[in-house]
């Protein structure tokens, strides 16, 4: 528990550090945003676009926007994360209005399933052997839920449709999965 408190303090200081760096228009802010929020923001974008490659492009443009507009971020109106999510969502929505996106949508069906399958079976390129071993202890169904909800852009409603489980159960299982994850890390 003491470890996690230390960690949390660190995270909070990271958030305020990012805010300060953004105000100073320092590029290091973007690096920190990418490291600490990148996976979650990519998920937010992918939730709208349903295209991993396109989502990565949008994340890149989001990082630019964050750097360009970061000095306008007002901490009194919400957390940095809330602001980052809004910028990401807007960028993704903007992308859906492009011809580029419409064309890709027309020739796309069933890719989502393949994407899930790939994601589920991936894991060969783990960087941290220790973390891999720990996370390997997680039951597959919980891992899938975490991936879908936090890293693959599926809404709870979509997950319940895909996996054929009720919405309430999806929410409870995600909560359980994270709880489990935290207990092993």
């Amino acid at each position, binding site marked *: 528990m003491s470890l996690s408190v230390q960690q949390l303090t660190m995270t909070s200081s990271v958030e305020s550090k990012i805010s300060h760096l953004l105000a100073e228009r320092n590029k290091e802010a973007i690096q920190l945003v990418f490291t600490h929020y990148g*996976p979650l923001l990519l998920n937010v974008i992918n939730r709208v676009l349903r295209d991993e490659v396109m989502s990565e492009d949008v994340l890149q443009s989001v990082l630019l926007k964050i750097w*360009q507009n970061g000095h306008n971020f007002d901490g009194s109106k919400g957390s940095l994360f809330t602001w980052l999510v*809004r910028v990401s969502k807007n960028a993704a929505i903007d992308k859906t209005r492009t011809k580029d996106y419409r064309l890709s949508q027309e020739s796309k069906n069933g890719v989502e399933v393949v994407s899930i399958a790939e994601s589920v079976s991936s894991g060969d390129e*783990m960087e941290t052997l220790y973390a891999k071993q720990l996370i390997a202890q997680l039951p597959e169904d919980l891992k899938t839920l975490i991936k879908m909800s936090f890293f693959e852009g599926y809404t*709870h409603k979509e997950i319940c449709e895909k996996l054929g489980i009720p919405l309430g159960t999806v929410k*409870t299982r995600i909560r359980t999965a994270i709880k489990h994850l935290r207990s092993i890390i």
Partner: protein
Amino acid sequence: MDIQAYISSGILEAYLAGELNEQEMKEVDRIASQYNEVRLELDSLRESLLKFAEAESKSPNSEILEGALESIQEIEKEKFFKVLDDEPEVKIQRVNIVPVWSIAASILLFISLGFNYIFYSQFKNTKDQLAALESDQTSLANRVSQTDQQLQYAQLRIAHFLSEDNVHIRMEGLDLSPESFANVFWNTKSNAVFISVDNLPEPPHGHQYQLWAIKPGLAPIDAGIFDHNQLVQELKVIKGNVEAFAVTLEKEGGSPIATVDKTFVKGFLKKS
């Protein structure tokens, strides 16, 4: 507020998954800032997820970050150059408001016009002066030529006076013109007669002076008509015993018979 129940509701997971709308997210932010426990829970959840992402290769490709940083660098470079480029733009805008070049051009035009006027005046003056000078020169040349001619006559007269071969007869004015006088030189070797027109009134229009040689007992002999304006002129050759010379006013072209009552001057040869 039951914090534990709030945390257990799954709203924090939904928050991190981007499941909530902005209003709901702000509500979570508000509660997290109010309740330290909620904030810690949120941060802890995020850290766990990041660890999971790292372990499961769910972190976005690092090329995304590199690409973004490169773009930022490009933008910064462009901005830097734009700042440099902006300077002349500002100047151009200033020109639009106050057309400096046109003011400068106007000033130059006025200066040019001023100079043009000055130069034109000077040119005109010079031209006038030149014309005056030319006219002066012409009149001077005329005078010189006139004087030259007069000098030639004078020299010629002196030569005639000094010539030992010449007989000199001074003809004095008569009643018609008492003030008048003229001289005749008669060369004793060649018998040539020269007249020096010294003071004779301007002949009336269509009339001319004529010289006559007078021999005793004979009618006057024509010695030639002469030009009133030419001072010294060679006339006819007169031979024989001449007593006197006289000048009469005749019709233009002369007369074979002297009009004696129009005799202006007359002079007798000195008896040697």
